[in-house]
């Protein structure tokens, strides 16, 4: 079995056959009980492909929708729109026998090995269950298969009659992997498979996963929030933010020179393994917007450090420009929830303030800066709207005045380089400066 699939994988790697094709996939949750509440747009129009035998990493902060994407591919969540084609068949609409066959071909390894194994069942029963569900051969052969799998993942046959409680986290994850392998799937979704484990164990599990991939010609979707892990194991990487894939491309290239501003920011937040390479840290301000109410333009536009400015403000002082963005975020947060405004300001600029009205907020934000009179007038105008309780009007006013293409138009995935890299950013358009160039100026 192993030899044939290894040969197969070699062959398919050469022909670059597409295993999984995701086209404009959307997963929304309608869980709000309130009137006119927007659905949570956990996955908001995602397209990518996975080639047979490769490992695609899916990274992003928690809450960016990467787990939901994985669960949608697994048919644990229902897709709201779009297509997911496995070997050319759309799996979002499968049912009955076809769905069961799909359940045979795609498996998942879960993040938390404490929660992913039923602790009232023996290890043998746990690994055997998929075989039982799919009526795999005879019961005797199933038992033999389980013993074989235990050895495959580095456990011993006598562990068959033990319970998950008797194993360490790493061993439990091996059990989960054995269960995922039981039905000889071609595609495995690894949902942060090592993030709950000790660092010392992580490497062992990652090596095991790589060995298994080589042995059985597996295709992986590796979900992670840890970029270092992804760099180690993935051929290509997709970076997710607020339900969108911001950038996707070969791992090495992306880590060398990130194209998308978000990837830039994300990479600069991890410690550089090579201390001789100086990389300046870019700290992102604020938090991602609510996935119920994502920005109309670029998903990253509320926090992007290199956001395109309208022509008349290109020469505006960087600090003033940043404070304007902060002010817009303050209004956005204020319209989202009736939380104490001063708390938000305090959080955003990291300063102690007392309860403040709109005017105080302006003073707080722009007090020490020399703000052009025209800019200040616009800000005061918006503050007046907000003072009267109409944050939406204030936001619209500011968007009108200070907004750019980043606020109004959703960017396309534009090609970067010649190895199939795609990045969701207006700055790859010829008329603007490339993000990398702008970052250069920022850190100087």
């Amino acid at each position, binding site marked *: 079995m192993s030899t044939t699939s290894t040969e197969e994988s070699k062959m398919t790697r050469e022909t670059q056959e597409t295993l999984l094709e995701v086209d404009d996939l959307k997963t929304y949750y309608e869980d709000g009980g309130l009137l006119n509440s927007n659905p949570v747009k956990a996955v908001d129009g995602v397209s990518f492909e996975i080639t047979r035998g490769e490992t695609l990493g899916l990274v992003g902060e928690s809450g960016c929708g990467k787990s939901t994407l994985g*669960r949608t591919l*697994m*048919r*644990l969540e229902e897709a709201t729109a779009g297509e997911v084609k496995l070997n050319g068949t759309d799996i979002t609409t499968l049912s009955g026998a076809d*769905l*069961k066959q799909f*359940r*045979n071909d*795609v*498996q*998942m390894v*879960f*993040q*938390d090995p404490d*929660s*992913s*194994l*039923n*602790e*009232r*069942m*023996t290890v*043998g029963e746990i690994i055997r*269950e*998929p075989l039982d*569900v*799919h009526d795999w051969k005879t019961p*005797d052969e199933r*038992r033999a298969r389980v*013993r074989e799998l235990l050895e495959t993942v580095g456990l011993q*046959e*006598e562990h*068959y*009659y*033990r*319970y998950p*409680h*008797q194993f360490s986290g790493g061993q439990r994850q091996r059990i*989960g992997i054995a*269960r995922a392998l*039981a*039905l000889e799937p071609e595609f495995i979704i690894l949902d942060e498979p090592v993030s709950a484990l000790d660092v010392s164990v992580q490497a062992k599990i990652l090596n095991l996963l790589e060995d298994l991939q080589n042995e059985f010609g597996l295709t992986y979707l590796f979900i992670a929030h840890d970029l270092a892990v992804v760099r180690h194991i993935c051929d290509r990487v997709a970076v997710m933010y607020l339900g969108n894939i911001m950038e996707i491309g070969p791992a090495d290239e992306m880590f060398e020179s990130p194209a998308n501003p978000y990837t830039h920011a994300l990479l600069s937040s991890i410690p550089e393994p090579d201390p001789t390479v100086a990389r300046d840290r870019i700290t992102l301000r604020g938090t991602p917007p609510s996935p119920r109410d994502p920005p109309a333009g670029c998903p990253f536009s509320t926090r992007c450090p290199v956001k395109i400015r309208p022509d008349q403000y290109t020469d505006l002082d960087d600090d003033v420009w940043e404070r304007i963005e902060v002010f817009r975020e303050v209004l956005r947060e204020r319209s989202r929830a009736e939380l104490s405004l001063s708390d938000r300001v305090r959080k955003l600029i990291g300063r102690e303030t007392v309860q403040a009205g709109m005017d105080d907020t302006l003073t707080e934000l722009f007090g020490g800066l020399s703000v052009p009179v025209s800019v200040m007038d616009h800000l005061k105008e918006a503050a007046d709207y907000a003072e009267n309780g109409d944050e939406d009007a204030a936001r619209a006013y500011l968007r009108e005045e200070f907004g750019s293409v980043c606020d109004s138009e959703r960017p396309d995935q534009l090609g970067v380089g010649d190895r199939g890299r795609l990045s969701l950013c207006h700055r790859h358009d010829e008329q603007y400066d490339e993000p990398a160039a702008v970052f250069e100026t920022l850190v100087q």
Partner: protein
Amino acid sequence: MSTQTETEIPLRQRVAENPQPALVWAAIGAVLVGVELGAILQVVVAIGGVIVNLVPGDPGAALVTSLQESLKGIPTLVSREFIPNQGYWNGSEWVGTFLGLSPGQAWAVRFVVVYAYAFAVLGWLWDGYKRYRQYYRRADWTPRDDVVNRFRGHTWGQFGLVITIAFVVMAVFAPALGPTTMEQNILQPYDYEINYFDEESQTVETALVGEANIGSGSQGAGDENVAPMTYDDYGRFHPFGTATNGKDLFTQVVFGARISLTIATVAMGIAGIIGLSLAMITAYYKGLADLAIVLASDSIQALPVIMVLILMLVIFQNTWVRDLYDGAVLIILIFSLVYWPFIWRSIRGPAFQVSEQDWIDAAKSFGQTPGQVMRKHMAPYVFSYMLIYASLSLGGIIISVAGLSYLGLGITAPTPEWGRLIADGQQYVASPSWHISLIPGVLITLVVTGLNAFGDGIRDAIDPQADTGDEAAATGGGA
């Protein structure tokens, strides 16, 4: 110890390889069954008789009766025939009692033998479990071992278990425990005669049981009272004294235990099955299914339980349902309907908690069916919680049934019921006949306490951290 081949061996072969522990256990079992063989066969034949009765034309009726007759010849250890206590004094010695002992002593011997036998059987089962665990089980540790071990260290829970077992034994062996029989003393007293020694004429006389009963009632006054552990004028021994109408109180109490425990456990069993199934469904499907059941259970829980019971019993007063098993069937049905929302609510929280576990998603991801997910991956975690709430509410049902009978609504007379006994003796509480009300009352308190202690024990054994587990889960269920 575990090798590749051993994991494949079926239990029978594992026993064959190391037969001694199993053989010893089986031998003890054979002795325990042997001494009760007659009774066991009688039960089997009785069930056979019921089945034969269902066949039109009663083809084997004669055979069954002759079989039953012949089986009566087989001596059984725990039986009235083997250790008789109903005899009479002929002026110089006791006639017809076990080894010529006094009826009281003979009865005490039988009482002790019954309990000794019952605990021997339970001990034997426990020993069997331990032998299996030590010699034959393939897993050297299971999560359940911890629960068992924790319970073994829980004195209060064990006290509850012993009390509970004592009452269950009382219910199961009721016919052998009483100093007299239901049939003779309570149901058809005028169909039976007894011999007794007449002090005045110094001769052995005969009397109908019914007549004797009239002469031995406990009605407060000194000469009209048969106190616990005394003989009446007809030489009959009454461990708990007599009731107002002269019937033996102990016999009524043990049969009362039978009907109370049957109602409580069957009603709780039905309510538990409904509650558990619904908890599985709501936790698995959530959303609308949950909402529908919340509404249904809220509506039922909004009704005052006792009011519903009384109303229903009155409505069904003269129907055939009311007559099934002296009214117990109707009471069981009503209690199951009223109690399932309680059980469901108590275990809904734990059920939702377990439904959030990744192993549920894992099972779905490889295509496990919803039914199997609920059965294999959810129910085992919720079942123990259900056991806690069931054992805690059994007491409530027992009290309610007693309450209904006290009001004259529950179990129909003359079938003995604790509540009715209490009602009967109520007016004599402050008289020498205090025992009529007090003894059943104390027993109810004792069994309810025992069940609660048992429930506490299970809870602590399952979840040693959660010392306030029930409140938390119950309120969590209401969210």
